[in-house]
């Protein structure tokens, strides 16, 4: 019997459809269907200036907007041959790590709710709100930030931000202990999650699965360590791994990643306290587009030599490895923007890790994937 789980279904966390063939309660085959949220972001990007694409990045992944801004900005700066100041890089890393905590908190909330336990949903959302408050103080937005710019970031951190941020992350560290008490110390939780959704490291690599799902299988692959982009090379942190390759392992990896993110955030805050400076590249050409130039004005486009270039970036996004590939053929718009969505591949690999389990195991297993349909469908 084929059962459609989606597009409107509590398990999906968005709009997608998991078609499941079941016999009794045993899953025999799955077929994920995507595209319900396809907004053509790659197509729209071809008609926008580089800075204007940033508004799309927040909407690509609505739980990890700053991570995707970071991804795009790195590729765009490569394609446009611009070097941002170091302080901007630190602020970006700080933002990305705060966003990682925010995204993982959102995941925690949704994942445990899938198990039928609604209390942590409120806890996770409540604590994520602290992160959103922090974002609001310096980016001005709570969900769609539009903060990073080609060549730097929009504005410097406001006064008193670092102290407040330290306060918040200290408080969050206490909350992580409480999360573990609610989940890991619960026999029912362990029974529901241990040994579920097994995906070995070899299979994960073959099927392109990245992020916490890969690290939960014992692999130490983390782009922040293996290919340090931005200023990750100068920061001390450990790669969170587990060796169980199951849902519990993914839980452990994400919880540990949040603690490591706090570690990175503290280092960034220390650095930012000591090193004031500009947050925008000084040699920024004016042809970049909004908001520095009247880009809608056709007269502006006359008599201008644009540089050409290719940009490629991969970042360790909360959901996995996200990639951007930008072709700048010498216009004010990119010629082609291609994004790699980790969620699309992680969901698609459900063909490998879902069959053989029960219908009741679908929510925990798919919840442990951390689905964000926005970035999956783009």
């Amino acid at each position, binding site marked *: 019997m084929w059962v459609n789980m989606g597009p409107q279904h509590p398990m999906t966390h968005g709009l997608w459809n998991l078609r499941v063939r079941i016999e009794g309660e045993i899953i025999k085959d799955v077929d994920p269907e995507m595209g319900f949220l396809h907004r053509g972001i790659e197509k729209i990007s071809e008609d926008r200036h580089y800075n204007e694409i940033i508004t799309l990045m927040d909407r690509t992944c609505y739980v990890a907007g700053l991570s995707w801004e970071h991804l795009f900005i790195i590729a765009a700066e490569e394609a446009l041959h611009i070097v941002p100041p170091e302080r901007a890089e630190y602020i970006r890393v700080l933002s990305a790590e705060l966003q990682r905590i925010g995204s993982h908190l959102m995941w925690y909330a949704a994942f445990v709710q899938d198990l039928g336990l609604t209390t942590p949903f409120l806890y996770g959302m409540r604590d994520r709100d602290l992160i959103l408050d922090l974002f609001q103080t310096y980016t*001005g937005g709570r969900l769609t930030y539009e903060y990073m710019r080609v060549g730097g970031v929009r504005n410097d951190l406001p006064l008193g931000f670092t102290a407040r941020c330290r306060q918040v992350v200290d408080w969050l560290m206490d909350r992580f202990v409480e999360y573990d008490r609610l989940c890991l110390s619960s026999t029912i939780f362990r029974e529901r999650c241990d040994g579920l959704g097994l995906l070995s490291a070899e299979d994960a690599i073959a099927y392109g699965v990245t992020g916490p799902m890969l690290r939960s299988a*014992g692999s130490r692959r983390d782009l922040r360590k293996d290919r340090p982009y931005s200023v990750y090379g100068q920061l001390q942190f450990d790669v969170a791994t587990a060796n169980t390759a199951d849902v519990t392992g993914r839980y452990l990896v994400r919880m540990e990643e949040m603690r490591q993110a706090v570690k990175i955030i503290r280092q960034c805050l220390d650095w930012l306290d000591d090193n004031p400076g500009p947050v925008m590249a000084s040699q920024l050409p*004016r042809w970049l587009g909004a*908001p520095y130039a*009247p880009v809608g004005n056709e007269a*502006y486009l006359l008599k201008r030599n644009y540089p050409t270039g290719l940009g490629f970036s991969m970042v360790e996004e909360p959901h996995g490895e996200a990639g951007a590939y930008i072709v700048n053929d010498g216009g004010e718009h990119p010629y082609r923007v291609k994004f790699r969505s980790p969620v699309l591949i992680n969901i698609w690999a459900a063909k490998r890790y879902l069959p053989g389990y029960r219908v009741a195991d679908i929510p925990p297993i798919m919840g442990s994937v951390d689905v964000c349909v926005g970035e999956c469908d783009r």
Partner: protein
Amino acid sequence: MAESGAQAPAPIPGTEQRPLLWVTRPLATAARQFAKSLWRPSTIIYPFERLEDPKFRGEVAVASGKPIGVGEIWDNYRGVHALNINTCISCNLCAFSCPDVCIEMVTVPGGDPKHPKKCPQIDYGKCSFCGFCSDACPEGCLSMTTRYELSVHKREDMVYSPARMFEVFKSKLPMNPIRVERPKNEDQILLDPPICIGCNACSRDCPTQCITMLDIPKPTPKPGEKLAKRIWKEPVINDSDCVRCGTCISVCPKDCLFWGTRQ
């Protein structure tokens, strides 16, 4: 790099990850939270209590012992725009920089009849609150306030006319204090002198009145040579006043103005 047999993360001190007596620990955790939130849960009764109210925020922070909201810097929020019509110079920069094309320049009373004054009108049905327009505004007359309640009954009401945004401005809401520094090496508007016909269009339409037409010497024609039919004036642009809106370029009939960097 894939290493098999990697270790699970070490448990954080204070976190015993093994279950104890079936489910006693989660029960105790929930009960502790119950006791904590008996007096004052973290939620805010939204229409009656507001996060941006400093008094209230302090009260919650004290009562629940944890930070909620970030105090004095709530003002950075990007909400509904406030427009100061009086200082708007109709430079079009906000409309040019809008990624969603939701800004339209509409005529407002107050300009002279030949060159009516135009101010932005924003369709919040399209707006993505990215703040590019207020970042681009050279005069700081368009800025974003902390107002975030936009619900209306009719779609037409989502369109905020300049007068309506002026009302927002007059309501003294906190405005986003962050100003984006403009790039240092901005392009300038350069003139291709041989093409210029001295028509005064750029000077006439410049929103900041930074273009003055200066007389240039009329060359004495050599015998047999015909002088170009033009007014013997050339625009001189005062760079410190120029806001780089490009209006002069778009109105120039001969395309003799262009962007560039003066050596």
